[in-house]
């Protein structure tokens, strides 16, 4: 057990856990922030995607001890009122089916758009390939990302 102070969604959290614990389980079990999902535990499905600084990372492979003072953003903190352009586009396109993968998809998509505000089709597919959607919402995911990219540019 070791003590960690983590900045998550703008708030400082103090926790005492085994240093090998992945951020995924710190969030879900210890901080009860369950928007970040478990899908594979081996960085293959993207369900657990969060932002570390500006980067989309798989929290199932991120030991709490490696976070340090880097800022973490989770789906719960992506926007104050659920109105990030990517979230809005996701709703308008009606992307989710079961919805389980979608927090991870949204976190990957929002990190992509931050770095590349106007991605090409291929860039979108490449960036999103690490996020599995078992329900097969891929065509809508691409459409929503394009919509969010356009809103960003027009605003």
């Amino acid at each position, binding site marked *: 057990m070791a003590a960690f102070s983590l900045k998550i969604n703008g708030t400082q959290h103090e926790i005492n856990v*085994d240093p090998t614990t992945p951020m995924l389980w710190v969030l879900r079990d210890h901080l009860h922030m369950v928007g970040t999902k478990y*899908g*594979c535990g081996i960085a293959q499905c993207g369900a657990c995607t969060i932002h570390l600084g500006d980067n989309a990372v798989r929290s199932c492979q991120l030991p709490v001890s490696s976070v340090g003072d880097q800022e973490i953003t989770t789906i719960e903190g992506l926007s104050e009122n*659920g109105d990030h352009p990517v979230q809005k586009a996701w709703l308008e396109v009606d992307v989710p089916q079961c919805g389980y993968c979608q*927090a991870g998809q949204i976190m990957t998509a929002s990190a992509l758009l931050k770095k590349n505000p106007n991605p090409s089709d291929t860039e979108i597919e490449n960036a999103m390939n690490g996020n599995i959607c078992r*329900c*097969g919402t891929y*065509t809508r995911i691409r459409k929503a990302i394009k919509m969010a990219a356009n809103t960003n540019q027009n605003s």
Partner: protein
Amino acid sequence: MTLVKTKIGRRSFIRTSALAGGGMMVGFSWLASCKMTPEEVNSLPKEWFDINGFLKIGDNGLVTIMSPNPEIGQNVKTAMPMIVADELDVDWKNVIVEQAPLNLDVFQRQLAGGSQSIRAGWEGLRMAGATARKMLRQAAAKAWEVPLEEVTTSNGTLYHKASNKSAGYGEMASAAVGVASPNDPPENIEVPEEVELKDINDFTIIGTDRLNVDGPKIVTGKPLFGIDVQEEGMLTAMIVHPEAFGQTFKSMDAESIKSMPGIIDVFPVDVYPEGVEKQWSDGGGIPQLVAIVGESTWQCMQAKKALKVEWESPSNLESTESYEDDLAKLLDAPAKEPARSDGDFNKAIKGAAKVIERTYSAPFLAHNTMEPMNFFANVTADKAEVKGPIQTPEFLEKTLSSVLGLPIDKIDVGMTRMGGGFGRRLYGHFGVEAAVISKKVQAPIKLVYTREDDMTQGTYRPAYKVRFKAGLDKDNNLIAWSVKGVGTNDDLVFENRFPAGAVDNYLAEKTSLQTKITTGAWRAPRSNFMAGAEQSFMDEVAELAGKDPIEFRLELFDRAIKDPVGPPEKNDYDPERYAGVLKLVKEKANWDGLDNGKARGVSAYYCHNSYVAQVLDLTMDGNKPMVEKVVCAVDCGIVINPISAKNQIEGGIIDGIGHATYSQMTFENGVPQQQNFDSYHLIRNSEAPKQIESYFVDNGIDPTGLGEPSLPPVIGALANAMYKATGKRVYNQPFILEKEIVG
């Protein structure tokens, strides 16, 4: 307008709040209640009035509609309340949707499976809305002392035009349930014996795009799923199961993990002890397990890795090679009774001018719902509370009653939103496991499977082989058709489906192979393989006949319409509707006109009471099909929610293409060789079609299922297009492994 008796689900119209002596402030469901915005709180009514089991109306006109069936991503939680709301005649903006609890006194068939929620619920849902509307009208007629016939409604308001009176539903709700009747003494409004249902042309909500009611919670990461459940004092439980199918528990070294941090208990579990009365839904999973209970998931995962368990192995563990051989032998062996025989197939095939025979195969598949199996349970001496992702809550409740020795009314089964179903959560053994573990440790627990546990515990889509044989006469007419199917624990063939009824000499045979590797229903059971095989074969037969594949199929449907073989009621499809989707897709895909340089394939299939035809365009990247576009025509009767219906269709198409191209479960000595997504290839974003277009036949027929029917045929369209691109036919799934397809 149709007049119907309210007999269906009559018990759901017995009002309860009147007994309580007033409107009840009924809390939001446990999951939804955690965080409400101030606007949400402000807009809540002071009182709710239960009109019937399906809905309650607030004094401010807000309506809560219960969605009775489990939600697995098929979006019934939006569609079912839409049907109620349309008949009730309210503004969808003023509707709040809640997941109903399991209550078979009020609701029927609270099950997600077979794409039947909407079809089976249609009438009852309409009646629930229509009955409530009539009771509100009755209340208004009484209050205003005017004839019932003169009271009309529009968008949540009651009107009496002649006297220029109007009132919102919220104002009349209390009178409608008889708790605040304006008459003295208070008088109950009768539950109507008969109600009018809307003319389908008067629908204002059904047939319009309505966004997923859980959408805002999904995109902001609110707790919705079983795996998100958090309760006071809750512990985490995990399982360890045998490595190979057929093994049983021998011994373990519990001490090796008991001292690990956070570990509370470890013990073997017999999920279904002797004498337990099992339900059909208890087929899946592995009944002998080891349970680990701890404080947190990560601690349990560490202990799981460290625990040493010995399993007893039988001598004959199964491998992919062995069941492949056994299935092939079974296919070659003479079948017993044919499942269906019309004319004389053997004689006709002997006299045929051209004969063609082909064999197709497909591997076991895991369901791989994105949310792994999990369940919450809190079992005490006299009651059990369980909740989680379950497609069959009614049957889980019955099994728990037998396993725990508790009466049904002491068992509370809650339904959470599910991170995918695909048939996997029809088999509720994980709910039983959770309850047994909770009982043993005398604490509330949440059982969570790791991905590896989830992928390797069986209940798979069976492995299949099917052989078709067809004969053409000298004028290239199809005169003989046979189908013989084999599967693991499943006999595959639907003998009364097309082309039965369209061919004079028809023979269907089927048989199954028992395996230790367990199997279960997987999205569009049997159809998920049969459609692709049959429609690939149909394409080859059309080619042999020198005919256009769509024309060839249409000729057969024409035969089934005009001069069906055998009694037409025996055929479980309607050839006109079948032909209808094919004609629609032909037009929409510009089948005759377009030459876009892409290879095209066509396919059509009927399952789960709906008809689907598809045209698929692709190019090949090595042996990998890159699907450019799928045009899909669907006849599922009335479409409740088009935006969501299209989502289901798109999902089914991507799912079908993905599994047929990439996915398989293989075994060595009973051990699954794919254990996580590094070795089990699920289709990914860049591998999905670039574009999918869906079109619906508009025929006003009562609605049928949509969760499954778009998946089966697309595999045929894919295989046929791959042939066009490469000149080589594909017969064995996953197609990516078929060596000779690179043309």
